[in-house]
């Protein structure tokens, strides 16, 4: 096998690209989950919201011919499904985990049915217009930098911007303070004259919008079509990244990028096709999952928001 220095350098660039591509949906969905859980509503339905976002983005992009409209539709659809989740768990004080399971079931069934209705396909829908990549001409030919950042989806930039914005909103605005206190001690927030249910509802809808954006990235930027159950468990990994990242924006970014890196590494190994390693690719795939378990059990105890998982009732008994 010929290995010149240039190829190795490009491999590094390629690894960075793969990491960015894999981590973007994870970070976005994890941020979504963060808003919801910091406000006190468990959202295991991220997977479902991503799926419906991916589907709507592809469908609208295909029907209207404009990928940006598709992106908006994906965000909107995720938000709409999240509103249903919020209606069940915030307005009607239902069980949040059960509702999340329902959201996932509904979304997986609904998007597969609609795949048949819209494109008359079983597995993968027709090709749709995608969001054009941002090309930075001057650095395109520099080995590592050019391969990594020369041609990048705008949603990756949006992801970094969203992390910064979430940090600002959560820690430096009144709304962020309300979200945080609604998850820690809702009765204190209530006694300050703020409607806890409103804050939670908004936070859950934000979480759906971000998950929808993550899904839209998959279907109209990363790929160019909607595939049956195309999120393939990314919502759950995002949930793990959220817990791994200790419910903070920066933590979500780091944990999501880490998981993305492991996936990118596995892709790189797959492409390199090293004879000995290919046999154990499944174990490389297992790595993120095992690491999460080890991290949760051994290294550090994650501290969830105190009131997460319980509906807030004014003057509750006890």
């Amino acid at each position, binding site marked *: 096998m010929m290995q010149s220095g240039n190829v190795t350098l490009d491999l590094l660039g390629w690894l960075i690209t793969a990491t960015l591509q894999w981590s973007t949906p994870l970070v976005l969905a994890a941020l979504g989950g963060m808003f919801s859980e910091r406000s006190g509503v468990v959202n*295991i339905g991220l997977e479902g919201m991503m799926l419906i976002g991916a589907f709507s983005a592809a469908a609208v992009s295909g*029907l209207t011919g404009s990928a940006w409209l598709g992106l908006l539709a994906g965000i909107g659809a995720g938000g709409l499904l999240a509103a*249903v989740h919020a*209606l*069940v*768990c915030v307005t*009607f*004080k*239902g*069980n*949040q*985990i*059960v*509702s999340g*399971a*329902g*959201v*996932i*079931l*509904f*979304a*997986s*069934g*609904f998007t*597969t*049915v*609609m795949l*048949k*209705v819209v494109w008359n396909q079983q597995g993968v829908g027709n090709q749709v217009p995608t969001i054009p990549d941002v090309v930075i001409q001057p650095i395109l030919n520099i080995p590592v930098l050019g391969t990594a950042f020369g041609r990048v989806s705008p949603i990756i930039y949006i992801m970094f911007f969203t992390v910064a914005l979430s940090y600002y909103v959560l820690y430096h605005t009144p709304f962020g303070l309300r979200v945080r206190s609604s998850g820690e001690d809702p009765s204190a927030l209530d006694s300050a004259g703020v409607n806890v249910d409103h804050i939670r509802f908004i936070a859950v809808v934000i979480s759906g919008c971000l998950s929808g954006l993550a899904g839209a990235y998959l279907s109209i930027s990363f790929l160019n079509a909607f595939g049956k159950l195309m999120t393939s*468990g990314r919502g*759950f990994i995002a*949930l*793990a990244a959220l*817990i791994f990242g200790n419910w903070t924006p920066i933590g979500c970014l780091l944990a999501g990028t880490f998981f993305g890196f492991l996936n990118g590494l596995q892709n790189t190994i797959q492409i390199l096709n090293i004879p000995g390693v290919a*046999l*154990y690719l*499944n*174990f490389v*795939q*297992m790595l993120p*999952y*095992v690491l*999460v*378990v080890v991290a*949760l*059990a*051994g290294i550090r*105890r*994650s501290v*969830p928001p105190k009131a997460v998982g319980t509906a807030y009732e004014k003057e509750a008994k006890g």
Partner: protein
Amino acid sequence: MEQTESPSDVAAPTMMRSLEMWFLEKENAALTWGFWKPIVWAIVSIALSLLVSAVIMILSGYDPILAYTWLLYGILRQPDYVLYFATPLILTGLSVALAFKCGLFNIGAEGQVYLGSMAAAIIGYAIALPIFVHPLVCLAVGAGAGALWGFVPGLLKAYRGAHEVVTTMMLSYTAILFTQWLSTYPLREPGQVQMVPQLPQILSSAMIPKILGSHYLHLGIVLAIASVFVVDFIIKRTVLGYEMRAVGLNRDAAECAGIDPRRNMAIALGLSGALAGLAGSEEILGTYGRFIDHWSPSIGFDGITVAVLGRNHPWGCLLAAVFFGALRAGGTFMNLVARVPIEMVGVIQGLIVLFVAAPRINDWLAKNGVGYPIWIKNNPKVALPNFAALCLAAWSAVLAFGFCAVKGISTTLYVLFLVTAFLGIVAFVTTLSRRGHVLVLNSAIVALWLAIGVLDRLQFGGGTFITSVMVACVGLVISASLAWFSRRETKERRSKS
């Protein structure tokens, strides 16, 4: 709650007494609303979700009446097919429900199913045993493997505080990948040509026989129903079950009462894993005959749905599993004849779970369903325009959905009709709950219908022009009367104060 062990000489009369007590208890329970409420709510949620699914079917161009007819026909035609689908669901449902009883959410039953089925499949083809012993050994090993995979997150939760939702999920993915590796490399059937990796066929002595002359249904159903008895007994009549329930209700209180919550949590998840492993093994031994990579039609995840609908009660799980089995079995017929995709069943299931999650929708329906007519009776002058708005909202929702189902209308009109329909539903709900904003919503509906009518007239043939304008005119009158009444009301209030 606890039955202390009685000496052997008085065992028989005591048992009779306790049986009598048990029946009396059941009889009393059957008379109270607390017993019936969850059942009523389950039926209401099923009805509501069928209704919403029908709307989705209309919107996507399928005929819901045809679909439901064939769904029902499929269920009645092949009851054995129903039970065949229900068999693994009963076991995974029990698995999730048992963990729930101890306050734990076993979201990763799927991985335990895979590991159990892999272990059973290996014993099934690699070791030769006599005919009755072989399946039993396979089942026991499968359940053991599942129990191990449930016990690990149980221990981590109990002694390290690692959240079981995350650990079971992550270990589930790990197990699926591990079985994939086993079936792709070391244990793959020699000379196999199929794309999907699989293990060799299990020996015929390990197969669970089919029963009742059915092509699908096997003895596993008996095992599943027996498990319902066993789990019910464990939860209700043993010290372990009592302690698990106590930990599930209030961990701190249980600890104060001298119950070790850690031990119980670990055991609960272990037992839960054993049940999931059992589900996987009996599917391999009874149906598939070998381990195939990714064989499970997500029976582990469906177990959550079953447990939720069955309210974590063993017998409830049985009923829920049979219900979902019926949906699956009928769904294949629905797919074959009415051409509705089989995934529609998933939509119905998801909606049922969403409705079941929020029992207060039931209370809300009961309150407003009874309260609204009373309100109309008591002050008809204010209520009548409100009632008219309610009727208009319902009518425009139905009408708009109907127009959506018309083949070949333009995309713009389709979207407008869809928005109108949803707005109609929102208006109906707000009007029924007397929340206010009725006037705004009503006016919005009127504006939408006017826009549809004008657009249709100018751009596309004008097929709905007269209907739309008619609805808009009626809405305008209602809006005017609403506005007039609310103004008069505020005037009266002012003059009073």
